[in-house]
């Protein structure tokens, strides 16, 4: 830490590290200095002049956002001179700002409103005609009203510095100056909508939230985004059970304010017209809506019958359901149905990494480590497309700490903008390229290695032993693709492993069929797909199989099913999910969709109908059981309960039985696709660019 210096702000003596900005020092002391253009973590502008303060021995008022604190400095933030300056600035701002607060979406949460209310003049002296420009639509999701814009350049900076897209710039000058997309009249960008969030006024408005509501009309629920595995916190704003906005302005999660297009706009699948809202049973070859009791009884009867005659079950879990549901499902399958054929759509070889790291402590990186590491090595991942938060963390690390990034990818990726070295290597040749970087990697204090699904099994072990040769602390992230892919693996939704990476033999069973084998088995009697769509790309070999599907939509698998049960999405239920970095976070129910039930409740009701005793099916009770029984999950409850992220303690030891890596199939999702859910999100399709193309730079 730098040397501490002492300065006085409003008569209070403060000790802060040398070089701290006065505005930050004041914030630490609880003194608010108003500002529009100052935005923590991004470059300094000093353009809004709201943060002017009086510093003794300086003739002019100084912008506190660019003024480093110096020893013995005496600052006044509320002197008459400062108050006058603020009043003057706000008066200038309001000259060409349309006072259309009643129709402005920002009304009620507008920083300009707040500031004028607090620091502004009571009356307006401006009697001239205002300068006006009409509103423009830049993309289906982003609208810009230049008249309202106060030019704080926050949008320009988050886009350029935060995401590395640089889709926004400034055109014209003087009072006509306005923000303009780099492509002229439309945006070609990630459509993340962060610019809309940071806009202090209603200049940038979201195409989805426009005119929908007022901030005070909504309930806000902080939950975890259900799209990719990065586990961003997204705060759903709900009015009458419907989600009308998602953002993370309260910076409650480890993602801060960052969200990608899926987190901010991709929630509309919840209210898609194609959502299933009633259970269905196949009658005379057609799926007909029936009551819940009828549907549950039908499933229970058939399951009991097949179990009684020792039939062959296949149970496929989901990569998006909660840990509790996954745990309960494998318990149901192994204890209730007596089958070891449990699997899910695997997208990364986590067990191999855990096995290879046996004997090491502190070798799995948390999301925060990506921002702190001195160097990063990315293997086989187009992070900006597949893992936007990881990409953002690394970029922020580079911007703030000059982290050195090394890439080994089959093609171009956005990280090349700042990477120290990028090697293009086709899949299968990665390790040779990685080995060539050894000399440079050794020179850094520590390293975090992020690898995709192209490294699996033996490849992961080679990578870890390569890391051992570097002689510096190395942490690893094994990339997986869906919001609870990691949790599904941890909860033992694989034929070989029980929850907590224990061998299934401990439970007196032999490993059952993997997903592909279930589909290929001609004698399968029952297939139970919970939130999974295995028939999207494959055929079910057994024509006589009794197929039960729990899902949000009538997917390919649901169309083949005998019984379809309408489930809830992650935004409608409680529970926990585990992110790509093994951090457990809590889901909180926000939206409501009539006629649906949470998967956990559905499973519990089936168990009850079958007369099985698998424990109480409330998320809290099941999570308690997970904490008690699953290795690594004995995490501090208060952290999770209060909405924080708790990293699971890595299972330190050899993994006794390895799930077969040949069953790993990466999803190949880009920024604008998200498996089945993405297909039902009209908004994601409306802004999609270059669908399905990774490593295009």
């Amino acid at each position, binding site marked *: 830490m730098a040397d501490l210096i002492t300065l006085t702000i409003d008569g209070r003596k403060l000790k802060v590290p040398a070089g701290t900005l006065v505005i930050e020092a004041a914030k630490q002391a609880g003194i608010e200095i108003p500002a529009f253009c100052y935005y923590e973590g991004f470059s300094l502008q000093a353009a809004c002049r709201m943060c002017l303060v009086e510093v003794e021995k300086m003739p002019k008022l100084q912008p506190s956002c660019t003024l480093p604190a110096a020893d013995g400095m005496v600052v006044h933030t509320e002197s008459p001179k400062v108050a006058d300056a603020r009043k003057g600035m706000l008066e200038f701002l309001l000259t060409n700002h349309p006072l259309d607060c009643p*129709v402005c979406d920002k009304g009620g949460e507008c920083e300009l409103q707040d500031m004028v209310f607090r620091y502004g003049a009571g009356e307006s002296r401006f009697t001239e*005609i*205002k300068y006006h420009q009409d509103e423009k639509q830049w993309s289906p999701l982003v609208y810009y009203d230049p008249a309202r814009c106060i030019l704080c350049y926050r949008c320009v900076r988050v886009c350029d510095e935060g995401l590395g897209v640089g889709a926004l710039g400034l055109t014209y000058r003087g009072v*006509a100056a306005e923000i303009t997309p780099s492509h002229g009249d439309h945006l070609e960008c990630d459509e993340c909508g962060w610019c809309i969030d940071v806009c202090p006024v209603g200049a940038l408005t979201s195409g989805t939230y426009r005119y929908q509501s*007022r901030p*005070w*009309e909504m309930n806000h629920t902080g939950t975890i985004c259900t799209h990719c595995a990065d586990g961003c916190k997204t705060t759903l704003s709900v009015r009458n059970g419907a989600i009308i906005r998602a953002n993370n302005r309260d910076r409650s999660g480890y993602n801060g304010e960052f969200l990608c297009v899926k987190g901010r706009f991709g929630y509309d699948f919840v209210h898609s017209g194609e959502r299933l809202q009633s259970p269905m049973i196949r009658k005379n070859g057609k799926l007909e809506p029936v009551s819940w009791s009828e549907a549950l009884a039908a499933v229970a009867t058939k399951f009991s019958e097949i179990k009684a005659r020792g039939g062959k079950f296949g149970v496929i879990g989901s990569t998006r359901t909660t840990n509790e549901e996954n745990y309960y499902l494998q318990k149901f399958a192994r204890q209730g149905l007596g089958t070891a054929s449990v699997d899910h759509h695997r997208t990364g070889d986590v067990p191999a990494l855990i096995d290879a790291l046996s004997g090491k402590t502190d070798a799995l990186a948390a999301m925060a480590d990506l921002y702190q590491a001195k160097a990063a090595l990315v293997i086989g991942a187009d992070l900006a497309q597949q893992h936007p938060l990881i990409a953002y963390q690394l970029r922020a690390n580079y911007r703030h700490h000059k982290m050195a990034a090394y890439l080994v990818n089959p093609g171009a990726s956005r990280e090349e903008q700042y990477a120290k070295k990028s090697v293009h290597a086709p899949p299968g040749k990665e390790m040779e390229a990685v080995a060539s970087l050894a000399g440079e990697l050794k020179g850094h204090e520590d390293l975090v290695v992020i690898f995709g699904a192209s490294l699996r099994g033996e490849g992961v072990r080679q990578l870890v032993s390569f890391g051992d040769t570097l002689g510096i602390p190395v942490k690893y992230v094994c990339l997986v693709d869906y919001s609870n892919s990691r949790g599904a693996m941890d909860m033992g939704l694989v034929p070989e492993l029980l929850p907590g990476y224990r061998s299934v033999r401990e439970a007196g069973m032999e490993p059952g069929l993997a997903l592909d084998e279930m589909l290929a088995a001609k004698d399968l009697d029952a297939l139970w797909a919970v939130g999974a769509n295995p028939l999207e790309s494959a055929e079910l070999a057994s024509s006589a199989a009794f197929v039960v599907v729990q899902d949000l939509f009538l997917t390919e698998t649901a169309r083949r099913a005998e019984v379809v049960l309408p489930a809830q999405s992650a935004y409608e239920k409680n529970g926990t999910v585990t992110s790509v970095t093994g951090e457990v976070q809590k889901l909180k129910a926000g939206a409501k969709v009539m006629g649906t039930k949470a998967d956990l409740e559905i499973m519990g009701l089936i168990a009850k109908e079958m007369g099985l005793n698998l424990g109480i099916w409330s998320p809290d009770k099941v999570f308690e059981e997970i904490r008690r029984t699953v290795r690594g999950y004995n995490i501090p409850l208060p952290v999770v309960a209060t909405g924080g992220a708790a990293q699971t303690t890595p299972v330190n030891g050899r993994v006794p039985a390895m799930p077969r890596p040949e069953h790993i199939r990466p999803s190949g999702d880009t920024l604008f696709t998200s498996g089945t859910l993405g297909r039902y999100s009209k908004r994601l399709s409306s802004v999609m660019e270059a669908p399905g193309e990774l490593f295009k730079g």
Partner: protein
Amino acid sequence: MPKIQEILSGAAAIAKGMGVTIKEMMNPVITDDYPDAPPKFQERYRGLHVLQRDEDGLEKCVACFLCSAACPAQCIYIEAADNTAQERISGGERYAKVYNIDYSRCIFCGYCVEACPTDAITHGHGFELASFNTSTLIYRKEKLLAPLAPGQTGKVKLDHPVMAETGH
């Protein structure tokens, strides 16, 4: 003697009584003839709400939600929508697609009228709300809107002067 006096005092009493009656007969009537005749109201009587229109017949309401925020009984429900170039409903950028007032909850406090920045919602003089079914007490926008005045079309005139300077 006492008899005459009795007669006289009786007559006087009758005259006095009739005097009051006749005097009141001459005075203007202060009671209402409701329901045979329409009742009279003070101008500021707070009755059934009216959603006003501007001089072109466009709706004044811009769906700012301030009335619903100000409402202590939470009886106002609004859904907003965007005016388009083809279809202009209100004078502002947006209009109320749905505007419901639940009169089973409304307490006629007038806060909504005070809160309205465009003077769109006002109290009218309607008061005959009684119903046997509370579900009929939710009044929709169509019922609350002021009727179009003669000559009004409810469409915007295109020859409005543009009150702003553009270009550089």
